[in-house]
């Protein structure tokens, strides 16, 4: 039972590894970006899980409430989400440019074309 208390962290690691595996095992560049965003979300879940206090409530102050969850991870992750989408967009822009010059977004094809050019 006491081990079940680490459940959140285990799932975080599982999600992180699924994201990591997608990044290294798929050749498709869009799929790699999806894998990265899974990885990213798993980090968000890790931070937010650590900030949770059993029996606490959302950190919006009100009379009669004594126990709040930790607001600091919330702040860090809130901004990270928006920065994450900005960087994903940049990655997508790169993918589109690659697709325009190579005609493919598969890593294998791009590698092959690069080797032929050399």
């Amino acid at each position, binding site marked *: 039972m006491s081990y079940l208390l680490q459940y959140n962290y285990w799932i975080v690691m599982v999600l992180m590894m699924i994201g990591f595996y997608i990044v290294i095992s*798929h050749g498709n560049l*869009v799929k790699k970006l999806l894998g990265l965003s899974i990885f990213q979300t798993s980090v968000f879940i890790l931070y*937010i899980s650590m900030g*949770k*206090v059993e029996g606490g409530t959302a950190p919006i102050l009100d009379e009669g409430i004594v126990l709040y969850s930790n607001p600091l991870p919330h*702040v860090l992750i809130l901004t990270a989400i928006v*920065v994450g989408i900005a960087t994903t967009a940049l990655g997508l*822009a790169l993918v589109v440019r690659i697709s325009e010059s190579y005609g493919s977004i*598969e890593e294998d094809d791009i590698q092959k074309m690069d080797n032929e050019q050399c």
Partner: protein
Amino acid sequence: MTIEFLVDIVLLGLLALTAIAIHKTRDLFASIMLTGIYSLLSALFFIVMDAVDVAFTEAAVGAGISTLLMLSCMPLVKKQEQPSRHHRPLGLVVVTLTGALLIYGTMDMPPFGSVDDPIQQHVAPRYLHQSMDEVGLPNVVTSVLASYRGFDTFGETVVILTAGIGVLALLGFRRSRAQEMQHRVPAMQQHMILRIISKLLIPPILIFAFYVQFHGDFGPGGGFQAGAIFAAAIILYTMLFGLSTARQVFRERYIHLLAAVGVLIYGAVGIASMLAGKNFLDYDALAANPLTGQHVGILLVELGVGITVAAVMIIIFYTFSGRLDKDDHKEPES
């Protein structure tokens, strides 16, 4: 075992399942839709964890705008994924090993949800107990975001602006005047139900964005979420009436300008507090009463964030769909 804990287990299980489904699907369109579901599930999880502001952002940005951006670049690339010749077993070994090590690492983590965890002892008590006297806002997340860690948030706003500039630099060039002048019949014009419902929805979405922007001091919300929601309304308009119409309503040049103006407002508040004799972004200096100063400072700073986020999201969407228009002119997709 509380209900909260059960919900937590189920949601995290669903997240893992969705992630596996994303790995298994070969169709990129389906993978992107699954990623949207994944984001929505994690938003639900954040609510269970009391992180309402984060859930709000994840739902607006992760499930909404991120999915949309991915879909809008779909027509520019191939839709089906090819089976890769990568050495899969080796990857699996690496991943399993890393995962096992990480899970071994979690054994040393303090128990989940305990009040005595080290993380709850350090700065959080000060934020929770003294922010009412020092900043004077009920929403602690906003106090920390805009005031205590204002410099950090400034940096993040600049990162967003930089990403917008980066996307423009990669895809925004090669624009010919003639193409921009052409009025094409947008694809969605023929869907009457979509058009009428969306027309009804756009004004409430815009008003809601303003509510989220200015009510962020007292409830969940703030510049980041409001910017994303505002951009969503304009993106909806663009999808409905086509890029050329949208460009006439919301001129690209002004949006580029606004993206920079948001960061400038943020920086100007910092400079103003320096001129008043305090540190950079110390809002106490902005008014005679420190609490009023904090309030004014946070309002302005959040406004800057909101403007930059909305402008950059619109720029990114314009740029992606601008590419699409040009490709249609050159060669019809087979």
